[in-house]
């Protein structure tokens, strides 16, 4: 069940821990300084540059300036594949029809520009009874069930 953090902002989290209380810095700034624990990945950034520093990161925001730019899905999955366990937050033009795929790619928080309708969100996230392929979530692909 989503945790709608407040009435005023649009942040939705699927985590138990407390959100990071300071703003995310750019990837370049993060790589230059050692004290930030929150970073924002833009579509053109190489998320792999963060991999040596995952242990000091508590929040990675992946920005979607336009919902049709799908690079952030790969950024998210790469970070989860590298073992990142902190918060992975999709921010920007995040729409309800994209959140199910985002969850599959490892996002566990959303901060959309426009608030999501709670009912539509629940519908979208419970839509798919099965999945055809493994991704960054824990869902078992159909092929594994067929050959269990």
């Amino acid at each position, binding site marked *: 069940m989503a945790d709608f953090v407040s009435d005023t902002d649009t942040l939705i989290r699927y985590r138990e821990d407390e959100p990071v209380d300071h703003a995310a810095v750019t990837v370049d700034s993060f790589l230059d300084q050692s004290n930030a624990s929150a970073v924002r990945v833009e579509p053109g950034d190489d998320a792999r540059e963060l991999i040596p520093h995952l242990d000091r990161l508590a929040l990675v925001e992946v920005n979607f300036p336009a919902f049709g730019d799908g*690079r952030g899905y790969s950024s998210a999955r790469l970070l989860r594949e590298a073992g990142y366990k902190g918060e992975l937050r999709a921010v920007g033009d995040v729409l309800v029809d994209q959140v199910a795929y985002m969850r599959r790619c490892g996002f566990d928080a959303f901060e959309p520009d426009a608030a999501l309708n709670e009912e539509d969100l629940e519908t979208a996230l419970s839509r*798919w009874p099965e999945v055809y*392929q493994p991704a960054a979530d824990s869902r078992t692909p*159909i*092929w594994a069930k067929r050959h269990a």
Partner: protein
Amino acid sequence: MYKYDSYDQQMVDARVEEFRDQARRRLEGKLTEDQFKPLRLMNGLYLQLHAYMLRVAIPYGTLDSRQMHALADIADKYDRGYGHFTTRQNIQYNWIKLEDAPDILADLAKVEMHAIQTSGNCIRNISSDHFAGAAADEVVDPRPYAELLRQWSSFHPEFSYLPRKFKIAVIASDTDRAAMRLHDIGIQIVEQDGELGAAFYVGGGMGRTPMIAPCINPFVPLDQLVTYAEACLRVYNRHGRRDNKYKARIKILVHEMGAEEYTRQVEAEFAHLLEQGVEPPFAELERIRTFFEDPLFEADLPAEIDRSDPDFALWVDRNTVAHKAEGYVSAVISLKPVGGIPGDATAEQMHLMADLARDYSFDELRVMHTQNIVLPHVRKADLHALWTALDQAGLGSPNLDTVEDIIACPGLDYCSLANARSIPVAQQISERFAANGKTEALGQLKLKISGCINACGHHHAGHIGILGVDKKGVENYQLLLGGSEAEDVSLAKITGPGFDEAGIVDAVETAADVYLRERQDGERFLDTYRRIGMTPFKEALYG
């Protein structure tokens, strides 16, 4: 052929409900057209010049009679009584209402069909050899690999918002009947030292910048096929251009990055992904393969065909193709009647083709990328009865691979992108050659027409290609020569200044006459062009 299990059915049913919900929100105004567009596109629904167009997936072009009947019923119930078979081995309906679309998808789901990912910037319906499972020259039936990739690519969470659309073709013979190297990824299943593997060709395509895909890996083991495809897609998703729609296809990435560097990055990603467990177990490929086992071909069938009826004999010569089983052929049903619209079939014709498939072809049909239909496994002894039924329904045109067998995009009659009409040009060319009687003498002559530079009509790959352009508000047609989508793949070249509508029909005949004058023994049009070059054609056209 492949049959859904309860998992496949659940996924398609869920998609219908998802789209029903999305269409409702659109009709209620909760989704803007901009927000709705990628959602409807991923369900095959385009907004065209006059109405919505729905494109239904026919995976690797294979379907059974029940499915063909259902397609006919949709044409009757929701459209104007016909459908249009496409170069992606799919079918399109041109007169659809948005309110009906969810019900159409529900009707399709009842016969294990869908419109998933037939449009949008995602991995599209996967195409294959239309003679798969029947061709004498294949090392193995390529369709199980296409089905494995269909499932992998369906609702892929990482690759649903790619820079641009993504088309994959799978073949398994050296003869290329699927334009494999003009795809974003072309896969050829090959045999090496008794082992099967997949050769990957990446970065081909037509459109405004045609490219022939280079081979980036000649042998990917079959138990790593999905992982390798995932690596190819991830490099593209991360690095493909998004600043310019016209430079966003993977061919531009491979071209700008260089095939060597692209391959290096794919191999690095592949090594990483091998640790991630994305590959289905080999048992899954084995499971899928069981659906594609040969039907029970009869032994000791007569090899001879009674050719006493000359019209029938001509159709046999033109429209049937050698089969791997003795006593059988693959029979091509031409959807190119003289003066007709290439690829169109009425609901009645679809019903008839379905019945004939049930009676004469182990209940199986194929859609060709050349917009014809194949009955893949027909006993030679049944051919006359089959032809008689086809001929009575206007489906007996003996013109496979001739100048009358034209590929044409919908063009300005339907398409909002087109600059010029394609269909009337195709109609006039087939009428011209039927009237002047040169079709037979010209032999194999692949003619392909696109109504704009997006090249849906494959004009770059035509022995003769025609490209419709807009010249100061007037339709104008450029002539191209020397293309091929087959194993001898090449890109056609423009002859020179374009022609008006009447002029392009004359120009095609002029080019055909140059061939008839210059050809040497056994040469096809394409062979003669390659030997003598462009100059004699230019002289005849513009001299």
